[in-house]
């Protein structure tokens, strides 16, 4: 199983532990991700798009042009990159005028692309190419008794018109992985709510309100932790959790992991290789629940 890998800017910085734990899990499952050489910003859902739509589409197109020489499906970890690249590919496919405009920009930059590469999220690869039963076979430390709230967020499954491998209202892919590694997956109404995304940079109080709803909903059903497949969701739920607590005078203490980190724990991998020391909210409560319990140094 070999794919053209698009890391995206977050996985290089704030979501470093997502990339680390993914690579560690890949070794166990025999997945090979070949980084797209000299990849650039995906084009951004809205940050660049609102400023200049053709620019955003051309940024996506440059990534397509490099990936197309690799003849493999493009795989990304970031829900936002996954969506942005998928939407760009769809828009260029359906709108000849837009395609013409982007072709002209690309030609002038000395680049060519068709836009025919398939864009996939890593979770799609795990569910449909690897499969939950193969994942279950690799488990060394079943996470028995751990109650996990899967938080899907927005752009992994929405909107179905763009590209979807799971149900937009009741996604199940991450639940199936949680069950495969022996933990209990919890159902709750806010698993596809929006965390507020990039509002964290411009309208923090709005984002805090939106993130609070997700955290409190998971807490209300008795979750030990939340797992997510999106760097932006992880940042808001984890790194900004203390600000949510301050702003609303709450005590939440909810560990937030990437689903790949939880898989790594179940595979018995070294916590250091899973980047567990990089998560902001302490993971102590859930690591002590594991048998045998795991200790993680808090500094990187």
């Amino acid at each position, binding site marked *: 199983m070999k794919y053209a890998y698009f890391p995206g800017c977050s996985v290089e910085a704030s979501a470093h532990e997502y990339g680390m734990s993914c690579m560690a899990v890949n070794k166990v499952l025999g997945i090979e991700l070949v980084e797209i050489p000299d990849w650039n910003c995906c084009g951004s859902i809205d940050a660049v798009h609102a400023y200049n*739509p053709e620019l955003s589409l051309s940024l996506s197109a440059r990534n397509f042009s490099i990936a197309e020489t690799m003849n493999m499906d493009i795989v990304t970890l970031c829900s936002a990159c996954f969506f942005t690249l998928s939407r760009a590919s769809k828009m260029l496919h359906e709108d000849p005028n837009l395609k013409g405009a982007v072709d002209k920009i690309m030609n002038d930059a000395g680049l060519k692309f068709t836009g025919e590469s398939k864009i996939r999220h890593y979770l799609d690869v795990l569910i449909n190419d690897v499969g939950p039963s193969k994942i279950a076979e690799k488990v060394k430390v079943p996470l028995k008794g751990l109650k996990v709230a899967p938080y899907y967020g927005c*752009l992994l499954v929405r909107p179905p018109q763009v590209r979807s491998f799971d149900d937009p209202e009741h996604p199940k892919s991450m639940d199936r992985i949680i069950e495969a590694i022996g933990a209990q997956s919890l159902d709750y109404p806010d698993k596809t709510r929006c965390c507020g995304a990039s509002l964290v940079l411009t309208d923090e109080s709005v984002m805090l309100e939106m993130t609070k709803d997700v955290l409190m909903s998971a807490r209300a059903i008795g979750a030990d932790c939340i797992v997510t497949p999106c760097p932006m969701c992880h940042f808001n739920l984890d790194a900004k959790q203390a600000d949510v607590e301050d702003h609303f005078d709450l005590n939440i203490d909810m560990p937030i992991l990437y689903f790949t980190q939880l898989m790594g724990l179940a595979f018995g991998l070294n916590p250091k290789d899973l980047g567990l020391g990089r998560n902001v909210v302490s993971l102590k409560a859930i690591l002590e629940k594991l048998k045998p319990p795991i200790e993680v140094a808090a500094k990187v």
Partner: protein
Amino acid sequence: MAHTQTNVIMNQKVDSSFLEEMEKTAAGKKILDCIQCGICAGSCHARFAMDYSPMQIIKMVQLGLKEDVLSSSSIWICASCYTCTSRCPRGIDIPLVMSSLKNKAMENKVPAKIPTKPKFHKGFTEIVGKYGRMHEPQLQIKLMKKTNPNEVLNNMAFGFQMLRKGKVKITPSKIKRTKEIEAIFKGAQKKEEVKK
């Protein structure tokens, strides 16, 4: 939502070319398909922070209320979560409509209800132009109100915590073939100028 309906009717500043202008954008073609069912308004996770619901924004575009739409907070608050579009029976890409409206608001230099927003879009784009990739700390610095010492201190404390957790890179990650990015930026900027 009766009260906002009244607002719409009370304001008579209609720009009859606005709808046509919006119909030329990628998502704008379907604006007249809207049947005002309200699924988007009911589904929107950020509605509580908006002055007009997405449904009202679409109606206002149909009516040509350019000034009211471009000066609304709604267009900037939309977080592109796509719950509305997933449920829209007419298949309208509402976040993309909002994105085009932001574009027009910036183009027309309409003062934004959330003043950091235009800076966010401009700053983000400039950083990508420079490195080919995003470098979050630089964006944060561009958006910081430097006149507010409390905000500067809080930002610095948060930045230090992120640094300690290995979540921030001091030196930006830069692509090798920056010439291609430069050429793409040049081409796309020319395209925007022609449009104006």
